[in-house]
């Protein structure tokens, strides 16, 4: 169920109306039902994974806080994934089939949870019990993430390596389907369990509340990755009705759809051409045009998605975190990561980089910590060598900035120096996007060599497509200029109401006249 679909519109409208007319205690149940209905629309079988993750983190969270649940309740919760898959199999919901092996694996979740709960619960040391439940939750869920997201990649890589040595990798592997949103909800759950372990928050006793926290439909598929300290209190104590929820929600939806439909989908036409497999026509102009188009495609796509998610949540009185803040105005890599996919970068900072020691150690240790955090961030985006390279590339940029006082000073100096920093950072960002967008290392090589090919006989003319690109990024840049004073890219509060009305009209016209292409959100694949 894409955000750009009638089904999503109906779900959001129904959730909005029912949420505000329901008694407050019922609202969390309504959000739970809506969120699971939303996830079911992708593939009913994946609900079992979501239930397994929710159950593990919920029980382990309680275990860490030494709030044990009865065996009956643990049994009931741990049976949920298996029972769900059995129902899918019996009634053939959405025509999906479930193999016996998968059913056995799902039902084996029960003895694992019961056994682990009993074993860890018996530990005499409080510290040991806390660590035990933490590692149980991390082990099960990172194991699921690793299996579903990276199994094919590592199997293919090992196969390739074996063949390099002249051996035959004759094994046949089942292609594993990647469940949508798994990277996002796994990270959100990790923040919950680690925060309980660090005594930053108390676990919730209500399973429905926790399951909704993990599956809250506006941000389930592609974030923002919320922290329990921000989202859980809003779910436990729903906001009171205020007309500003409707106004802000609708404005965010309008800006989000504009970024997605007008900017991203139209830029995609050029980016997809340049990064098409083995495109021999790339010259300097097209290489630049393609990567610039992709830079605005991915920004429009993902920040548009984030705005739609924030707008949808705001209609339900829930405020989600900012995910983007003018990232292409950054003067250096550090600033870029404070502006781009903010909830992911702060997650890696808080749960990987700082626990590893951050920048408190030696030069080498800091570089190591940065490298680990950024390569993992790259790998989080997808199981491919290009993503790993992209992460490593950004790690190098961060290290270079971290240990370059001249660069740091230039970012704080006069306009000319700042302009030079901005131009340099734009160039570096574009190289990063070329790595990110390439389907393979070979394709990146083709793009890179294309940058230096001034004349290519078969290359198409690029001036008119450049105009097309400018036509679609110009309004976005104007919007950003209009909101530059605000913390939120989508906020126009400081403008006169007539100016805001005029901008809303323009955004609506741009969006409505671009509703032709039907492109999926890029970040849904992560």
């Amino acid at each position, binding site marked *: 169920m894409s955000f750009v679909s009638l089904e999503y519109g109906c779900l959001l409208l129904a959730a909005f109306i029912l949420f505000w007319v329901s008694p407050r205690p019922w609202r969390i149940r309504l959000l739970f039902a809506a969120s699971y209905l939303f996830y079911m629309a992708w593939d009913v079988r994946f609900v079992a994974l979501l239930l397994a993750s929710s159950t593990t983190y919920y029980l382990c969270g309680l275990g860490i806080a030494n709030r044990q649940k009865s065996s009956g309740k643990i049994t009931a919760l741990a049976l949920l994934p298996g029972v769900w898959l059995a129902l899918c199999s019996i009634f053939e919901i959405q025509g999906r089939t479930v193999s016996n092996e998968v059913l056995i694996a799902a039902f084996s979740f029960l003895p694992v949870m019961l056994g682990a709960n009993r074993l860890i619960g018996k530990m005499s040391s409080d510290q040991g019990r806390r660590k035990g439940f933490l590692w149980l939750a991390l082990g099960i869920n990172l194991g699921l993430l690793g299996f579903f997201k990276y199994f094919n990649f590592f199997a293919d890589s090992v196969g390739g390596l074996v063949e390099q040595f002249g051996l035959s990798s004759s094994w046949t592997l089942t292609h594993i389907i990647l469940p949508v949103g798994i990277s996002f909800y796994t990270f959100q759950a990790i923040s919950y369990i680690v925060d309980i372990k660090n005594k930053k928050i108390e676990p919730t006793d209500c399973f429905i509340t926790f399951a909704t926290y993990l599956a809250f439909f506006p941000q389930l598929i592609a974030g923002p990755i919320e922290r329990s300290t921000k989202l859980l209190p809003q779910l436990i104590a729903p906001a009171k009705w*205020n007309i500003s929820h409707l106004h802000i929600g609708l404005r965010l939806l309008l800006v989000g759809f504009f970024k997605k439909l007008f900017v991203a989908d139209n830029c995609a036409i050029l980016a997809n051409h340049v990064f098409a497999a083995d495109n021999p026509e790339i010259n300097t102009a097209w290489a630049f045009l393609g990567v610039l188009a992709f830079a605005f495609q991915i920004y429009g796509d993902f920040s548009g998605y984030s705005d739609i998610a924030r707008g949808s949540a705001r209609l339900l009185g829930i405020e989600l975190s900012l995910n983007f803040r003018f990232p292409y105005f950054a003067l250096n890599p550090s600033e870029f990561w404070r502006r781009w996919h903010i909830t992911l970068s702060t997650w890696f900072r808080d749960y990987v980089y700082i626990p590893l020691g951050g920048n408190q150690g030696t030069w080498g240790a800091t570089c190591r910590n940065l490298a680990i955090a950024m390569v993992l961030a790259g790998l989080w985006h997808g199981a491919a060598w290009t993503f790993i390279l992209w992460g490593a590339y950004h790690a190098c940029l961060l290290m270079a900035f971290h240990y370059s006082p001249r660069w740091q000073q230039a970012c704080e100096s006069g306009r000319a120096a700042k302009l030079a920093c901005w131009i340099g950072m734009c160039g570096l960002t574009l190289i990063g996007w070329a790595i990110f967008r390439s389907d393979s290392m070979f394709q990146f090589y083709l793009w890179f060599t294309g940058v230096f090919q001034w004349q290519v006989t078969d290359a*198409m003319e690029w001036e008119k*497509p450049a105009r097309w690109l400018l036509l679609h990024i110009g309004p976005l840049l104007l919007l950003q200029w209009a909101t530059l004073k605000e913390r939120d890219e989508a906020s126009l509060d400081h403008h006169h109401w007539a100016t805001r009305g005029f901008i809303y009209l323009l955004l609506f016209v741009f969006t409505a006249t671009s509703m032709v292409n039907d492109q999926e959100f890029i970040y849904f694949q992560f």
Partner: protein
Amino acid sequence: MKSNPLISRAFLFGACLMIGVELAVRISFQDNMSGRFEYGFHPSAGFIEEGGQVHLKRTGGRRFRPQSFTVEPPEGVFRVFVIGDSVTRGSSVESSYAGRLAVELKAQGISAESYNLGIGGHGARRKHLTLVHSLNYKPDLVLLHINNSNEFEDEREFLRSTEFNSWHPRNWPMKSIALRRVYEMKTEKVFWKWIPASIRMSQAKNDADAEIVAMSSEGATERWNQRVRELTGESTQAALAKQIPILVISQAYNMESENQSRRLDDNGLENIAESQTQKGVLHLSMKQVLENLDFQTLYSDRSHLRDEGHEAMSKAIVQKLIDSGIVSLKK
């Protein structure tokens, strides 16, 4: 404490502005509104009646070449309507065989007026709708140029018309003429001109590609010929019901033979037209008219005629009318 209104002033202002622009565009492009969202399937789009005159207009729903005639035919003037597609339409009314017909008839001493109702891309379904409406203006003869190369387009536009008039919200914004015009301007003036064809074809849902795929499907021509047969039958019956004679012209295509030479191919249309002939229904084969001439010089491409080709066709039509007695019977 001051409470916020349900609709913010900014939203209200934006909405009022949109409504204002919409009203202004609707008033400015009033003529263009006829059948705007019917994709050629509106029964009377493009026929604008004003003070006893009928104006054929290039509207959003049907893009006629601009012409005018009286609602009631002038006394003693032989009125001919020619219904067809881009072949009939020609490069201008005057140079098309439809426009030349009146001149040729006048040269034979017959007072006549002829009108070109050809619209590019129209297949049997849309031609039938045009023909049925044109019968209200009491022609003395209707010419129906049949073809089978526009059936895919006819079907596609029919589906679009049906879809567009459905309840689905994705169609709502485009029901605004202001948004529609911006969208069309963007598509036709920007997208088609600024994005190279190879990129458009490889990524966008391209009508031309879809047609090629449809044409290559098994039995496509057979199915389309069947539709042309049925609708030509309905058209002839509609004309006969009003006792108006009809001349069916079957299209011929300028094809390349296996030995690289050119040949004319009727693609099964002669058979369709011939099967309709009866009292009041005549058939003229374009193939038979042109194959005795140096036809390669008469075609501009596979289907369309040069001005010389139109001239040859108009002469042949007049001869057919005289031979069949339709003209002499009337005058």
